[in-house]
Every structure is written in C-alpha cells, then in structure tokens.
C-alpha cells in the first residue's frame, strides 16, 4: 500500500516534483544548479562543433528554467504568470509531459478546467498506468462539470491499481457525488483499513460533510476522536456540522467543539474565526471579540474584519468598528458584491453611531441594494461562513492553494533565483538565435531573439541581434523597433544607426531614414548608402537636398546610367515628368538595357495616358529583364486599359506565381476575370486582395460586385458598405 496523505491537496504538490532539482531548494545555488549544468553542457557541445546537440541542451536548459520560473510564480501566488511559464516550458522540449501536468494543475486553479481536461486526457492516454495523471484528470473532469466521466476515469484507475489509496479515496468521493453512498462507504472502509490512522477518519468525515451526509460525517469524526482525542480538526469539523443543517442550527454545540479544537491549537486562525462568528451569531459579541481579533491578526481577511467590526459595534466601540470595517472593505474589494454591501451597511451604522452622519450616508447608499434584508442574510449565510470548503465535490481540492518546492525561499533568495532564471533564459534563447542566424534562418533567429528580449530586454546584444535578424528576414517594421532600442542603449554605434536607417527606409519612413543617414561616416565612400540617402531625401520632400546628393554622386562616380535612372525616378515622384523622361532617356542612351529605366518610363506614360508608348517601354524593359515584376504588372494594367485582357491575365498569373501576396496584381486579375464573366474565379483573387489591403475601397467594391454575381448577396452588401465607409473616410480626410 502506498503512503497516503491526510489531505487531498497533497495531489497538488505534484508541481513540486516537476522542477528539475527534485527536492525543495533552500538556496539560490540549489535552485539554479540544474539549469547551470544544462547551460554548461550546451556550451561545451557548441565549442565541440555539435550544434544540434547544443540546441537540444539549450532547449533542455530553457525547459528547466521555465519550470523553476513557474514554481517561483506559484510560490508567490501569481498563478497566471505560472500558467504562462509552464506553457513556455511545454514549447521548449519534445517530451514536455511534466510541463503539461503542471500547466493543467494551474489551469484547474485559475478556472480553466476544460483546457486541463484536454491536456490530462492526452497525457493519460499516452501513459495509462500513470495514476497521478488519472487522478488529476478525474479532478479536472469534476471541476469541468463532468462528474460521470470523472468517476469512470477513477474506476478505470482503481481497476488498474486497487491498492492505491488516493485513487480509492477519490473514487469514493466521486461515488458520493453520484449519490452512490453505499459504494462510497465500502471504499472508505478500504481506505481506513489501509491507512489506520485517525487522520484518515477526519478526511472521510470532512468528505461526508462536504456532501451534506451529516450523520456519516459525525460518525467518522467521532471514530477519529475515539482513536486519538487529540486528533487535529476533528472537533473543528464537528463544530461546522452543528451549524450546517438547515433549520437546526446548534450554535452552542458548535461553540463547544470549536473551543475544544482551540485547546489543541490555540492560534489556529480559521478555528478562531469560526468560533468568533458563532459567538457573534449567538449574540455573545463581547466573547467573540478575542477569537476574532486573533483571526484578524493572524490571517487578515474581509470576513474576519467584517465580523470583528460587527462585534465592536455591538459592544459600543464604534470608532474601532469603523477602523475594522474600513479594513474589511479594502480586503473585500474583490469579494462577492453582497458581502461588500453588507460591510458597507455595518460601516454606515458604525459611522452614524460615531457621529459621522454624512460619511454614513455614503455607505448606506452603497449598501442600499441589499441592506433591508441584512440581518436575515447574515443568519442564512452563517453555514457558508462556517464551511471552509464550499465546493462540495472532490474538485474542491483543486481549488486549494498549490504548493511550490520553492515556497520556503526567503524573499531575497527568491529574487536571486528569479534573476538567475531570467539570465539563463535570455542567454539560452540568444544563443539559439545566433545558431539560427548562422544557418541564415533569420525568421527563426528573430523568434529566439524576441523571446530573449521578452525575458530580459536589457540583456547584452539582444536588441541589436533581434533588429539584425528581423532586418535580414526583411521584417523591417519589427527590425526598426528593436534597433531603436539598441541605438538608445548605444547611441554612438554607427552600425546600429545605419541598420536602423535602412530599416526605416524600407518601411517608407524616409524622413527618419534621411536624418539617420545624414551623419553616417561611411556615406561619402559608399555609393549604395549615398543612393539610399538621396532617395530618402526625395521621398521626404527634400528634393533640393537630394539633387545636391545626386549631383555629387554623378561627379564622384561619373555619368552613370543607374544614377540617371534614380534621378529620373526622383523627378517622377515629384510629378516633374518632363525632367524625369529627360534623365531616363539619358540613362538609356548610356546603357540601353539599364534596369528600371524603361519600367519607369512605362509608368510615366501610363500616368500620362499614352498607352502605346507605355506598352512599348514596358515591353522593352521586359526584353532585358523578363522577370521584372513591376514592369509585368504595369504592362498588365496598360493592356487591360487597352482592351487586351487575355495577355494581361497571363502576365498577372506569372506575377502572382512569384509574389502571391501582391495585392494590386490580385485585384487586377480579379477585376479582369469579373469583367470577363468569370465571377467564380474572380472571387478568390478579390478576397485575397481585400485580405492583403483591407483599407483599399476599390477592392471592396469589386469584391462586392463579384459576390453579387455568384449570388452571395449578404457578403456583397457587407463589402459595399465597407466600400462606402472607406470612401467617406477618405473624403473626410480631404481638406
């Protein structure tokens, strides 16, 4: 027979066993030792050139670090943070069952039993003989409102492990839930025989009590006392039994039992609180004061201060009552509204008695909703106050506090461990990111760096690495964010400044790009930087400065065709088409197949409505650069306008094969298909165009037309409305 704890919550100590140290840690070094070992092994593999093994070991270190972080959060009562930590752990390694189990435990605590059921079901299928998981699953099922499935799970587990007392006990509780009292009783007898200590009978008695089987509960608790009159909690539960039955509230019996319990443990705050409440309810407020003061001092809670205030008011200590009730209000801010109203009511009475009429009026107002029934409600709810486990199911255990292997750490050690975990995580994620970057997997590298930055944004190199990876993955917006942080940390670093400038340039933030490049020491000697600077100036409406840059470039690098193309594009962007054409023609004269010259000319001719010239220039560009995507798209536009849809569609299909996310090309192809009567085929393209550029009004208009044609009127109306709203928004923006 396995050892059997005296309280069901032991199950929840499972999280303790999950952390890598194995035993409860007392010092920071003990808590961090397993992580440090993993990191050292990973770095040794790295030095040995075994990057795959290094990756695996870094991941194992990350797993351990998140598990420790989760345990720290549990110890501090930050369950949502613990949930996130265990979730991160579950994404670190292939075999993450320990993280999933901890995650499920926390999910049960934070009111997400359905998620816990999903996780635990999978775990228990994978390991049918893992009884701990099955027990947890049963608890999660019960908490999720699936008591029959819970019982079935426990029956299966019991059949596989008939000697496991915890399973037997939980199954008995499940039977009580299913109202199979005889079956439960048989199992409880088995449990008691297997573990013949008085605490077993306390646990059984309490479970009967939770299911409101008061006679059986009393019998079990008395058995515990018969075995050992000093058994803790037996008198306490007998006391609660005296006040729980409806219509038969035996306050004196309860008071006697609570007092008997306090003889065994005079400083027990819960028993003091219950005794104080029972005395108050018996109108013996003066006697209630002492136990309530102990309860309020040792375990401050809204309930304790509320009842203390009530009693102080009753014995004429209005000023003390005001203090206690104000404290109750602070502590009860997140309590149920009816309790808060009752506190307001009592506080209003105390304030009035203390002569603070105006202040009292405010609290009477706050209490208004339920005050008229206050006295009755107090009595009616007495049994609830006395019931320390209001959820009368085995799931109640899941709602009791989780314990953590790191709960015993002092605050200073706790902080040291937390800092060590953060450093280890940042270091491991950063090194994984570097491994990815070295393999030129920049998007993947960015994700690791992102995680390093999320854990410790100030870790050395992290923002620059993140910015650099995002830049190389062409994720310029994200690159700019990280590089801005990197530059703030190291304002004199020209490399960071330059990369940020280029990221800004690529996101269209030309003003900022130009400002950043203005003082770049390498600009004068690097034509590509000079070019970017010139273009940024043009596009941020500083054409005169740009002209000076380009003139200098022409002087420095000769009369080069590429520079004339840039100048031509700059003029075109300014709307000076004549100057643009002049430069572009010059570029063609110097190098007839210079990239982009004909494409830009084609675009200019299109804007001028010269379709034949546009088509000729674009075809010329494609003769030299057949894969020029913009030239193909512009030519398709020209051909569509010129009534040649077939060739336009062929061009667009080719463009989309290379750039499926090119929204203008999708839109144009959809529009041409729609005009050709192929609405069915047009719809997916127009849908994609809208998805890629949701703020373009004309896309919504064409999509609405296409939906109309295929009989999807509801969607047609929706997109027509979007079209109109975007149009109106655009009109509103106009001066």
């Amino acid at each position, binding site marked *: 027979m396995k050892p059997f704890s005296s309280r069901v919550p032991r199950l929840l100590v499972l999280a303790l066993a999950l952390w890598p140290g194995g035993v409860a840690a007392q010092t920071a070094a003990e808590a961090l030792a397993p992580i*440090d*070992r993993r*990191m*050292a*092994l990973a*770095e*040794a593999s*790295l*030095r*040995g*050139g*075994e*990057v*795959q*093994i290094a*990756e*695996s070991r870094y*991941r194992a270190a990350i*797993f351990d670090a998140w598990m420790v972080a989760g345990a720290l959060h549990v110890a501090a009562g930050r369950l949502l943070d613990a949930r996130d930590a265990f979730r991160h752990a*579950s*994404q*670190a*390694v*292939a*075999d*993450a069952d320990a993280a999933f189990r901890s995650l499920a435990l926390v999910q049960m605590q934070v009111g997400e039993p359905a998620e816990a059921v999903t996780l635990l079901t*999978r*775990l228990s*299928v*994978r390991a049918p003989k893992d009884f701990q998981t099955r027990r947890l699953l049963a608890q999660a099922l019960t908490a999720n409102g699936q008591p029959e499935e819970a019982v079935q799970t426990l029956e299966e587990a019991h059949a596989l492990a008939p000697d496991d007392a915890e399973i037997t006990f939980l199954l008995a509780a499940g039977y009580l839930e299913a109202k199979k009292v005889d079956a439960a009783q048989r199992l409880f007898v088995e449990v008691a025989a297997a573990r013949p200590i008085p605490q077993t009978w306390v646990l059984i008695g309490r479970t009967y009590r939770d299911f409101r089987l008061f006679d059986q509960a009393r019998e079990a608790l008395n058995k515990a006392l018969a075995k050992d009159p000093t058994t803790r909690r037996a008198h306490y539960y007998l006391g609660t039994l005296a006040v729980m039955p409806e219509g038969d509230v035996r306050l004196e019996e309860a008071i006697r039992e609570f007092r008997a319990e306090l003889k065994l443990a005079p400083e027990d705050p819960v028993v003091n609180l219950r005794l104080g409440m029972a005395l108050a309810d018996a109108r013996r407020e003066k006697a209630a004061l002492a136990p309530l003061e102990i309860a309020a001092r040792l375990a401050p809670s809204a309930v304790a201060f509320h009842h203390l205030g009530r009693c102080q008011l009753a014995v004429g200590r209005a000023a003390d009552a005001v203090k206690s009730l104000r404290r109750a209000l602070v502590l009860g801010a997140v309590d149920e509204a009816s309790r808060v109203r009752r506190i307001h009511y009592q506080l209003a009475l105390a304030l009035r008695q203390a002569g603070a009429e105006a202040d009292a009026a405010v609290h009477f107002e706050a209490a208004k909703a339920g005050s008229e029934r206050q006295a009755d409600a107090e009595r009616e709810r007495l049994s609830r106050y006395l019931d320390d486990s209001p959820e009368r199911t085995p799931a109640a255990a899941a709602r009791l506090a989780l314990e953590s292997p790191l709960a015993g750490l002092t605050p200073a050690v706790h902080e040291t461990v937390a800092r060590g975990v953060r*450093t280890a995580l940042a*270091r491991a994620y*950063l*090194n994984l990111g*570097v*491994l990815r*970057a*070295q393999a030129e997997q920049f998007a*993947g*590298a960015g*994700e690791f760096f992102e995680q390093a930055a999320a854990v410790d944004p100030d870790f*050395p*190199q992290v923002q620059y*690495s993140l910015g*650099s*990876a995002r*830049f*190389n993955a062409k994720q310029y917006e994200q690159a700019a964010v990280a590089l801005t942080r990197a530059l703030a940390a190291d304002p004199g670093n020209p490399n960071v400044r330059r990369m940020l400038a280029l990221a800004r340039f690529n996101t269209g933030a030309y003003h900022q790009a130009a400002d950043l490049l203005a003082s770049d020491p390498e600009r004068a000697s690097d034509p590509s930087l000079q070019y970017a600077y010139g273009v940024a100036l043009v596009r941020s409406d500083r054409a005169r400065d740009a002209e000076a840059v380009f003139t200098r470039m022409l002087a420095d690098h000769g009369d080069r065709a590429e520079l004339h193309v840039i100048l031509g594009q700059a003029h075109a962007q300014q709307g000076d088409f004549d100057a643009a054409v002049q430069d572009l023609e010059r570029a063609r004269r110097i190098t007839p197949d210079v990239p982009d010259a004909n494409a830009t000319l084609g675009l200019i001719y299109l804007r001028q409505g010269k379709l034949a010239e546009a088509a000729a220039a674009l075809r010329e560009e494609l003769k030299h650069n057949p894969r020029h995507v913009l030239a193909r798209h512009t030519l398709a536009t020209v051909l569509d306008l010129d009534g040649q849809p077939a060739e336009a569609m062929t061009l667009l*299909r080719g463009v*989309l*094969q290379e750039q*499926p996310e090119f929204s203008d090309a999708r839109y144009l*192809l959809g529009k041409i298909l729609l005009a050709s009567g192929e609405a*069915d*085929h047009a*719809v*997916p*393209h127009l849908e*994609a165009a809208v*998805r890629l550029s949701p703020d373009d009004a004309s896309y919504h208009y064409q999509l609405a037309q296409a939906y109309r044609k295929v009989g999807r009127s509801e969607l047609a109306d929706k997109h027509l409305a979007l079209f109109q709203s975007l149009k109106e928004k655009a009109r509103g923006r106009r001066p």
Partner: protein
Amino acid sequence: MLPGVMLSLVISLAAPPQAAPPPPEAAAAMRDRVLEQAAAELQAGRRAEAKKLLASAAERFTSVRAMLQLARLQSGEGDAAGALATLDRARTLAPDTEEVLSAIAQVALAARRPVQALLALEPLTRLAPRIARHHYLFGVALMQAGDMPAATEALQAADRLEPGHNLTSIALGIALNSRKMFGDAKPLLLHVLEREPDNVEALAALAEAEEGLGELDAADSHAARALAATPSHPTANLVVGMVLMKRDRYQEARDALERAAAADTESPKVYYQLSLACARLGDSAGASRNRELYQQKLRAMEARIEELRRVGLPSRGEMPR
C-alpha cells in the same frame, strides 16, 4: 549579417561553465577531418566510402552532425529503415533539436510510416509553432494515417501561418474532399489553379470536389486534364470512374477504377467503388473481392488511427468512405 563572432562573444559573456568539460579539441578536429573526407568521397561519387566514414564519425565522436549526413545518404538510396535507425540514434543524443525531428518526419513520411512521422511532427509543431511547413507536414502525415479531421486542422494552421501556399491548399482540398466537404474544397483548389493552371494534383482534387458536388461535366473535364499530364493519376482515374458510374457506363468505369487501384493500392475508396462497378456488371466474385479489399484497407486505416490514439496523438477517428 550577424557577425560570426557573436556566438563566442555571447558565450564569453555567460557565466563560466560549471560541469562537463568541453570535448578535447583534438577530437573535434579529428571529427571535422573525417567529415571533410566523407564530403570528398561523396563529391567523387564514392557513396559507400562516404557512408562508412560518416558511420565511423557518428560512432567514434557521437556526432549528430555525422548522423544527419549519414541518414541523408541512406534515405537518398531508398534505405528508409537504415536512415530512421540512424536518426533514432541522433534523437537520443539531441531529442529536442528541430533539424533531427524534421529529418525523422521527412524520412518517415517518404517511407509511408505516418505514425513514426507524427511522433516527430507533434513536438516539432510545439517547438516551432510558427513554421508553416511543420504544420503542413503534420497535416500530410495525419492524412496518410487516415485521420482527416485532425489533418484538416493542421493544414488550416499551416494556411493561417502562410496563406495561399499551393501545396497547403491542395492538401487541404484533398482532406476536405475526404470529409465530403466538397463545397469548401472547391474554392481552395480553384485558387491554386488560378496561380498554377496546370497543377495536376489540384486539377485531380478539383475534379473530385466537382464530382462530389454533382458537377459531372466539370469533373470529367478537369480529370481529363490531369490524366493528359499524368495518365496513371489515381485520383483523376477514380473521378473518371465515379463519373462513368453515374452515367451507367460500368465497364469503362471499372477500367478507370482499376487504373486508380493500380496507382494507389492503399485507398479504401477505390476498392469500394470497384466493388460497386463489379456488382453492376454482374461480376459477383469481383464485387466480393473488392469489397474484401475495401474492408481490409479500412481496417488498416482504423489500426493506424488506433495507433495514433494509443500514442496520445490528436485523432478524431473519422473514417473515410
């Protein structure tokens, strides 16, 4: 773009290692030399020598790098079992490495061992949840195993991460067809054909969707286009057979279905249709044989799904027909 020295920089910033001294530099250098020799042998077309060298590096230096290279050669020679054995060894040394898991998944998928592939792909989709390719392969493996609802979910996840990818759309179309969700499959497949009008897989899957929707002429036409490019295409032949069945041309239907069965011996659906065709032609022996084959394939699929369930992989166990 990242400076090559960054890694060592980061390591130097880290706390000094406290355990497991690094492997002797000499051993690492020796391993690198063996790997270089293996590469040279391979370059010279001497695969056997290259494999021998890689196997020796894997063994002597417990090198996962060498194991991955060896598995690649074994897989390239069609030795899936050998490659998987090598990769299993790599996995014991580096259980949490994406490259190792991905290699296992790909070799297992190519060898039509979906459960083995799934055991690598399930963790892979957790370790790198934003990589569409892992979800795509997860979906394909689930399709191979016959778990179409779970496959649909995985493929939809891939599509969310990388919208409009042709391979994902086709696989999703096929998965939806297997679940008789032809109306959902059709627009996806049309979308693929807009981008790639001659894609044979998309044409065949579209034909299957159209057949399911009762659009027999369109199904026939798209299946014919697929068969013009790949005459033995199993799905296209299946569609042609099913269209012919609906047009009461049973003999031609049986011929097409037999071609489909020859090209894909694992599909229960083909045998089911063949049993119907034989029955219509009065060939009760053929009907009975094909019905038995249908049930046999179905049982194999059920076994695979049961295996998925047993190893705790997502499965809803919906059976195709």
